[in-house]
């Protein structure tokens, strides 16, 4: 297959995924509203105990944005596999000459674009309100950080897909994973209050690296060494996801989809 054919195939899968997402425009609205509802709700609660400043709100708002898009990204691969299996399409997809990696990557890219767009649109008013035009300029490089940061999370999701194909109850697993990763995100609280070993786990996960790097840029304090950690995470978690999913696909090719 020539490069042009690959690109046209990739584009077709992306368009199809985009149409599926666009069927429910209300979902996109929720993506924009959710950080306001959660960060605003928590700020409201916290305001009864202490004074909440604009900077506090920005920090928490970006934290919730990171948690939200991360959770969506972690679920993307596993849910895709699970839905295709439930709909009886997974066997057909695996049997086609098109690599599943192409299909998975194209669908994930759409989700990344939707997530980053939601992050941008939702953050604009808050960032402008606190930092003005300079804040909007600082927001631009954070889009790149978000793009890179969502890749290792997709890798974690792919690794989870390996577990999902062996389970019937995907929702149950995802509920636990979402809750656990949200606590371990380190994006909405200072991590020094955690026990040392939990602290180490949080720092090794991409959510914290993505959050700290994006926050540093928005606040104008520059990037820290965590950006190298984020780059390393991207390679490591994506490799883990690809390796794990590869093994699962080999099993499915041998024994069929169970």
């Amino acid at each position: 297959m020539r490069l042009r054919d690959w690109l046209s195939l990739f584009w077709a899968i992306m368009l199809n995924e985009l149409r599926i997402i666009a069927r429910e425009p209300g979902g996109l609205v929720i993506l924009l509203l959710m950080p306001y509802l959660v960060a605003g709700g928590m700020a409201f609660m916290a305001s009864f105990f202490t004074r909440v400043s604009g900077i506090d709100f920005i920090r928490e708002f970006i934290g919730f944005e990171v948690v939200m898009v991360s959770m969506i990204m972690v679920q993307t691969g596993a849910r895709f596999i699970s839905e295709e299996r439930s709909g009886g399409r997974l066997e057909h997809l695996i049997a086609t000459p098109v690599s599943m990696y192409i299909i998975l990557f194209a669908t994930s890219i759409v989700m990344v674009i939707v997530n980053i767009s939601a992050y941008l649109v939702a953050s604009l008013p808050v960032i402008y309100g606190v930092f003005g035009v300079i804040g909007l300029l600082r927001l631009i490089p954070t889009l790149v950080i978000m793009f890179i940061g969502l890749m290792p999370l997709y890798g974690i999701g792919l690794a989870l897909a390996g577990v999902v194909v062996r389970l019937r109850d995907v929702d149950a697993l995802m509920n636990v994973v979402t809750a656990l990763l949200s606590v371990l995100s380190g994006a909405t609280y200072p991590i020094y209050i955690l026990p040392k070993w939990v602290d180490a786990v949080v720092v090794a996960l991409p959510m914290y690296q993505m959050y700290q790097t994006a926050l540093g840029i928005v606040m104008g304090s520059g990037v820290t060494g965590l950006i190298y950690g984020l780059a390393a995470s991207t390679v490591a978690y994506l490799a883990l996801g690809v390796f794990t999913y590869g093994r699962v696909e080999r099993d499915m090719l041998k024994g069929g989809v169970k």
Partner: protein
Amino acid sequence: MVGLRETCLRVVLSRIALEFQRGVRLLFSKPAENIAFVISAPLWLAFFILTLRGYGVVRLSQTDLQLFLWVAYAFTLYSTWLWGFGHGIMDEGYDGVLEYVLAGGEGLLTHFTGWGLALITYELMDLAVIAASFTVLFNTPVMFINPILFATSILLVTLELLFTSVIYSMLVIRLRSNWVVTNIVQFILPTLGGLIPGEVNGYVRLINRYSPLAYPVVLMRESALGINEINIPLPMQLLYSVVIIIALALLAWLTVTLTTIRLRSSGQLGLY
């Protein structure tokens, strides 16, 4: 005449009991989901408490923690009921259950009432898990100052949520979208429904005092903590709660009747 009324009542109650039985079986048909809930509830609790720390809340007193527990429980109740009904009705639409219910002449209200009552099992599980999580995480035993009033308030909250969820389900049928509606409603409804304790702010106390939806939830908190949050005598709060539940029941009956007529006349028995 009396005999006929008793027979009709017995038929309706036996139908509700059947639906209740079906609902309980359905809820426990996925044990993995129940286990996941038991594991994830304390994690979410920890996440939100840690987030308060992120906002700079360094210390929470014993009273604050007790209040926070009931906030967490009330929020879980709203989420459980709204998500349970929202997802449930869409699933029933997809699976064709609603088509059978509507085509078979069964009343949708009976169907939802029985199914909703089955959610009580979830409610009690929620309470046990959240209370246990608080005890473990904060070393704070849960207070139940007035157990009888507390049990009554749980019953009132259940009935209120049952009828609210039925009305909400009709909205889901109309809009054909559950999670978008739920996400918005589950933030608005608790605010008007007494989720936030009046102790924290004078404005919130005003909402809790004058919002008719708030009384059952406020009563639940008051009976557990032995306080009078909105300065209305408890018998009056009980009376107001009963009145609002009757009003919600009538509204639920009306919306279900109108929706059933619309679905039957348009031929959309299975929603699609």
